[in-house]
């Protein structure tokens, strides 16, 4: 058996100081490398989802609709313009239901990589931050693709403000995803909870919080579904930016604040649950 010698101190010695500040970026870098394993899923979902929805709705459903559902400053807008910002938001929320659930279970239980990272100078809070950075980047990528296709389909109103739409997409995705991340990090086993989140949280929100029709269309007894739904707040915010949906400024401010509250609240709780579990 050969006896390769191993340097125990020379040029490659470890720094004694803990690399605190960039820790989250290292975690994100690790996540990106993992995402490369399913890069085609990321791309196909990123391109396919908007393509199918915009095609199906723009060419199909929209042609059947006579009523004007929404209007901007310049009057009524086509249905596809109304629905596109909400579809973009639901696409990022959909990424969240995947990345902030199974990825977390994998990190704690299946691949156990979080425990490996935990033994390095990286603190649990930085693991959370790194995950958020990586997933937000994937959401941004998906949102940009969505926006590009929206432009191609002529599904936008105001070319000046529509560029902010990916930002809203990421914010909406995180507002939905970070509380989910906090929840996922408390689970020891996946006994179908994530599938339940898909079916009983995401799908109802997708259908009942003003994605395909204005929330006001529903009986007023159901409006609360929209008010507590990050998806509705993100969709409404997106509509303001995409075609200048007419509404008071304070309503727009509320949308931003609610989304921020969901995201920041979820983030803080996730940091706590990660720390409690790993330490």
């Amino acid at each position, binding site marked *: *058996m*050969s*006896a*390769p*010698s*191993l*340097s*125990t*101190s020379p040029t*490659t*010695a*470890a*720094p*004694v*100081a*803990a*690399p*605190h500040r*960039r*820790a989250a970026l*290292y*975690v994100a*870098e*690790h996540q990106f*490398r*993992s995402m490369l*394993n399913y890069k085609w899923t990321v791309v196909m979902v990123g391109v396919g989802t908007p393509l199918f929805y915009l095609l199906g709705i723009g060419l199909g459903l929209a042609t059947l609709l006579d009523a004007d559902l929404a209007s901007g400053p310049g009057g009524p807008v086509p249905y596809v313009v109304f629905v596109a910002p909400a579809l973009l938001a639901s696409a990022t929320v959909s990424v969240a239901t995947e990345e902030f659930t199974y990825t977390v279970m994998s990190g704690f239980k299946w*691949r*156990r*990589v979080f*425990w*490996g*990272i*935990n*033994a*390095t*100078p*990286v*603190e649990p809070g930085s693991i959370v931050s790194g995950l958020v950075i990586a997933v937000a980047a994937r959401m941004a990528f998906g949102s940009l693709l969505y926006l590009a296709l929206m432009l191609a389909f002529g599904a936008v109103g105001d070319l000046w403000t529509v560029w902010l739409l990916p930002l809203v997409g990421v914010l909406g995705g995180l507002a939905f995803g970070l509380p989910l991340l906090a929840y996922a990090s408390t689970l020891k086993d996946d006994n179908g909870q994530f599938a339940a989140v898909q079916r009983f949280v995401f799908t109802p929100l997708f259908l009942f919080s003003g994605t395909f029709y204005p929330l006001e269309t529903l009986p007023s007894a159901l409006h609360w579904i929209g008010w507590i739904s990050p998806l509705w707040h993100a969709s409404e915010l997106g509509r303001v930016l995409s075609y200048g949906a007419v509404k008071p400024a304070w309503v727009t401010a509320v949308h931003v604040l609610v989304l921020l509250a969901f995201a920041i609240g979820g983030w803080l709780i996730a940091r706590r649950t990660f720390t409690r579990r*790993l*330490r």
Partner: protein
Amino acid sequence: MVHAQSLTKKYGDFTAVDGIDFEVAPGESFGLLGPNGAGKSTTMRMVGAVSSRTGGDLSVLGLDPDTHGPQIRAQLGVVPQEDNLDAELKVRDNLIVYGRYFGLSRAVCAARADELLDFAQLTEKAQAKVDDLSGGMKRRLTIARALINTPRVLMLDEPTTGLDPQARHVLWDRLFRLKEQGTTLVVTTHYMDEAEQLCDRLVVVDHGRIMAEGSPAALIREHSSREVVELRFGSTRNAAVAAELEGVGDRIEVLPDRILIYTPSGEDALEHVSRAGLHPTTSLVRRASLEDVFLRLTGRSLIE
């Protein structure tokens, strides 16, 4: 390197580590030997600065884990009981990604990864998937990963549990080389042979307490005789025969399946047995081991 005094860890009412004292000197290979649930892993987590102590004093590399966790972890290498390699990454990428967590540049990580793959005898597997590695290879990769930051202390939690004999020997060989190069090792194990192979000094732990401390040889000298005779008369007869053997050797122990006679000379003891007209179905004379020390100290077998 490590200094623990009255170190205690409680989970609610349960005391996992019950006031233990130990020191690890630079370059030393130190072992925690004990059955499952003895508190070894909990102790390792406290030393590894990922679990805070409930009481007592602990200093690792001169720092307090409660206040300097990241600084301590930056200088440790940890081989956990359960592998947590990233199966989604290739073998070499596992090392590189891990090195980044210590703030090493990509170039340093890459150079170090190649060096460590060589050391772990995994160079040919550099581009393989982790899942395609054997159990022993995964363990070696985990050890290589733990060395990526050139740690001052390498901590191994049951490094060879679950490996076949050949894989264990390859692993021991690698660890022995590290020891020769002066790396400080802290090892937990419930295998006596592993403790005897790897440890300069060890503590025997049970129920969160230290039962004995010393080098493997000193422990055997202190708590056992030089040789042990194992006799089997069949499980139904062992107890009755043991009564007749009283006075042979220093001490006799009756286990469900066999009788152990602790004696300075196994041959003499065997002669006694045959002169008494007793004919065991099998007999074996062997050198005393840490297992005997453990049996003596706790009255129980190590692996439970």
